């Protein structure tokens, strides 16, 4: 998909982007559009909505006291920890399964339809099942995060492992390299860009999984913070949570795009 283009939103990536001459002149229209959007939002809410509805001015006023609120910080830490833990599990599991699937035809044939199927399934439908299995606990949230994240990693790593140039493996095997070593030193590095692309998708899905799990299971975290505050008509405070989630969503993307460019400069995915 569009790995390269996300960087457009990132001023930090600016110096590595000679192909976009309009980036320099784009600041003014962006600022204007942003102001118009905020102005419209403010105007509509002031004119037609009840007073408790979040609008830019009141959200901005809420930010200073929300971000020092220990409850908010604890909730953020809670969610991020669950997402990180789930992503780590999904990364290890997904890489192993993906490598296996990409390099072994038998495994691929057996597993492919299931991986595709689970990937296509809207991940949140497993929540009621996980709540039966793990109870209304953070274990159910962790399971949801792993479930949401793992399949995109498997699929991408398998794609990457399959696309290793045949010559590399032939050279390695003619030098009598062991299969394990080939997997470790040729296939895995070659699949790393795919792994990162899968990880980017997985991170977004994991975040959604964590938030939905907190809504559903009513366990502490950023999702629950948003739910609780919006139920008690503290929309401005709740919206600060949404802003933070959006920042995480964009942040994950930027970090992965940056990492691909920085650590894997040899990798070009034909400008898609």
């Amino acid at each position: 998909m569009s790995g390269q283009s996300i960087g457009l939103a990132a001023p930090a990536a600016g110096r590595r982007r000679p192909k976009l001459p309009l980036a320099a002149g784009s600041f003014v229209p962006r600022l204007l559009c942003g102001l118009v959007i905020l102005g419209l939002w403010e105007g509509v809410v002031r004119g037609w909505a009840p007073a408790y509805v979040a609008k830019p001015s009141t959200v901005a006023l809420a930010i200073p006291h929300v971000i020092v609120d220990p409850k908010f910080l604890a909730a953020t830490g809670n969610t991020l920890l669950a997402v990180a833990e789930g992503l780590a599990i999904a990364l290890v599991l997904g890489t192993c399964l993906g490598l296996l699937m990409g390099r072994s035809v038998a495994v691929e044939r057996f597993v492919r339809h299931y991986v595709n199927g689970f990937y296509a399934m809207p991940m949140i439908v497993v929540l009621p099942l996980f709540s039966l299995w793990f109870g209304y606990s953070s274990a159910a949230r962790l399971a949801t995060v792993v479930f949401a994240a793992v399949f995109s990693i498997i699929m991408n790593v398998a794609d990457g492992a399959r696309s290793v140039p045949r010559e590399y493996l032939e050279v390695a095997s003619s030098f009598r390299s062991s299969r394990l070593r080939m997997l470790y030193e040729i296939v895995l590095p070659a699949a790393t860009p795919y792994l990162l692309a899968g990880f980017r998708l997985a991170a977004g899905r994991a975040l959604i999984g964590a938030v939905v799990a907190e809504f559903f299971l009513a366990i502490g975290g950023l999702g629950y913070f948003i739910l609780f505050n919006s139920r008690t008509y503290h929309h401005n405070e709740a919206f600060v949570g949404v802003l933070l989630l959006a920042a995480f969503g964009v942040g994950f993307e930027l970090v992965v795009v940056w990492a691909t460019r920085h650590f894997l400069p040899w990798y070009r995915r034909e400008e898609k």
Partner: protein
Amino acid sequence: MQQTLRRNAPFWISLAAGIALWEIAGRSTSAAFMVPFSETMLRLWQLVTGGQFVAQFLDSAKLFLTGFFIALIVGAPLGLLLARVRWLRVGIEPYIMTLYATPMVALIPFILSLMGFGFVPKVLVVFLFAVFPVLYNTVEGARSIKPELIEVARSFRSTEWALWRDVMLPYTLPYTMTGVRQAIGRALVGMVAAEFFLSSTGLGQLIMGASQNFDTGGVFASIFVIAIIGVALMRLGLVIEQHFARWRQ
């Protein structure tokens, strides 16, 4: 006949093995934890013949289709407009990207407390899930149009309509269809999320109800159906995308 059978053999074998695995796993664990395949199918049959299933399914389908098509009708033309009006595209792009990456589920509590439990708020949820992939990918396509093409068209005194028909549309449509494929998947998530967290209806309610009654068979049966729907829709999306990808360079 024989050849197609042989070609599809791995698929059927893997399917049979998966079902066998499910059956064994279901039989060797407690019934509250996991239900074997045979019992899941039995429960599904009961749900279908009981009549409630079809009604719930149609309910979900209505929600999905309404939200999805509104997203398409709004997203694609807006994306095309952004393709043409360059300063607007440059200005609005980062915001579309941000919204594309934002987990839209986070907005559900707001929608709930502002709009309540009707059909409209649920459509809004599906719409919000689906619209940004369409918009984002259309804008992406718009960016891929070479400025020279428009310049050439202009210098041949192309009319505005011809420019849209022969340059804009063919160039952006394949990207829009990538967006459509992504939007189908997201709209399905949005549909289930709306049914879970707003008024409980449709397939979402079927799962929730079964889970609250500790009816593990019902949970498995409904998840199975949603998974099948997910796979079918994903396939459909791929077919649509590939159909239009043929003319994409």
